[in-house]
């Protein structure tokens, strides 16, 4: 694939942990590639499979869902439902042949700015060789 390819990643970050973690990365002036566009949601449990499919359909090259670590959910257990739901979405997307690298889930706490930075760096690195995601994308 072309070296110049810059993937677009849509990241659904829960407000209390992962979005705060990404804020911390900013406050700490850590650097990661600008390929990720965050969408802050209240809880990872609120991320519907439809959002994920839709992001891919609209041309996202990668999608990240990130929430609080198990047991730390601001809403007690939302991330547990997310974990199950996302696992199913992942199984399904894998099964139809979407590269598994394109869809990720992570636990990022408010203290894990570094982890968030690493996740994005690695995500971009993994997506680059795959090239643009055309499988689910609408023809433009």
């Amino acid at each position, binding site marked *: 694939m072309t070296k110049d390819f810059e993937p677009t990643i849509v990241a659904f970050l829960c407000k209390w942990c992962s979005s705060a973690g990404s804020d911390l990365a900013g406050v700490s002036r850590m650097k990661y590639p600008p390929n990720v566009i965050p969408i802050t949601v209240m809880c990872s449990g609120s991320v519907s499979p439809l959002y994920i499919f839709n992001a891919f359909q609209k041309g996202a090259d990668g999608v990240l869902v990130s929430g609080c670590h198990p047991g730390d959910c601001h809403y007690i257990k939302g991330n547990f439902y997310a974990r199950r739901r996302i696992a199913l979405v992942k199984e399904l997307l894998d099964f139809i*042949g979407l590269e598994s690298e394109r869809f990720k889930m992570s636990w990022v706490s408010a203290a894990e700015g570094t982890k968030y930075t690493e996740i994005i760096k690695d995500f971009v690195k993994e997506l680059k060789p795959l090239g643009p995601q055309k499988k689910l994308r609408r023809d433009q």
Partner: protein
Amino acid sequence: MVEMEQLQKEAKEILKQGKVKFVIGYSKGSQNLTATPVFIKKPEHTSRLIWDPTCVQNLVKFIVDDKQKQSREKKPDERPVGIVVKGCDSRAINVLIQEKFIDRDDVYILGLSCEELGVVDEKKIAQKLEGKKIEKIEFAKKNNLIVSTKDGEKKIPVKDVLADRCLECKAHFPVIYDQLFGEETEREVKEPYKSIKKTESQSPKKRWDFWKEQLEKCIRCYACRSICPMCYCDECVADSINMAVTAETTAEEKAQKIKWIERSPALSENIGYHLIRAIHLAGRCIDCGECERACPVDIPLRLLNKKLEKAAHELFDYDVGFDHKKPSLISSFKDEDPEDFIR
């Protein structure tokens, strides 16, 4: 063995007593080789009921239909509906009860055990006949199908043409019923997920090529959704053209209906539709195989659902339709749910 006469007798009895408003069952098909759904209202018509391996349909969809019809009626007949179900179909009833769409009392269940067999796959029979036109098909005892073509009669053992889902079925007798016909036989299934094995073992590229070719065929007739007993929503989120509107629905609500997918039968929209359908059936699909059977363009839709059935079983120890008192797959979790895919 399921005695057809007993089934007919029981159906006749409950109709006579007025216990049910009608009985949904199978009768001999007219042209196609499989049985056809029949709605029996009068006790004297119960002799039309049959039971053999051509009874492929999942009749539970008609329970859904009746329930929806009732909700529109001012004075609905609230008596239960009598229904003939196989093992898989009975699990559909369980899911409907689990999801409070129906009450246990809404149905009078005439459960049939598939015993050693199951039902046939029309496509497999067609393959056996190498494209020859079927003139007549009959089910003979000892589990054979007698198929007549222009070249004469041919005997096909049912076992050779059983539907894949039956070969993979873990519970081939009803899990919920009012009357059971036939034996609660045990059957060991060696490979409950055999049909997805091949696809699973392929590379992502191969898998994609396969699904691309399959889903490009979709003409969005929505037969898969229409025949599915779990697709009982008034409005399907996956489809921008339908909308449940009442007098209370505001113009804004109508205007803001989200078009998750367009109605164009383009590949991306077809995939969108089938992905949404599959994920919405996770933990709900009881593998009656009706979506795949109904599909006019032969998309192996069952595989998508089977994949998630397997995931539910292997990752979350969840089997669909066995217990209507348990919360659904996606409305429950366990602390030890796997998370090795999460960073």
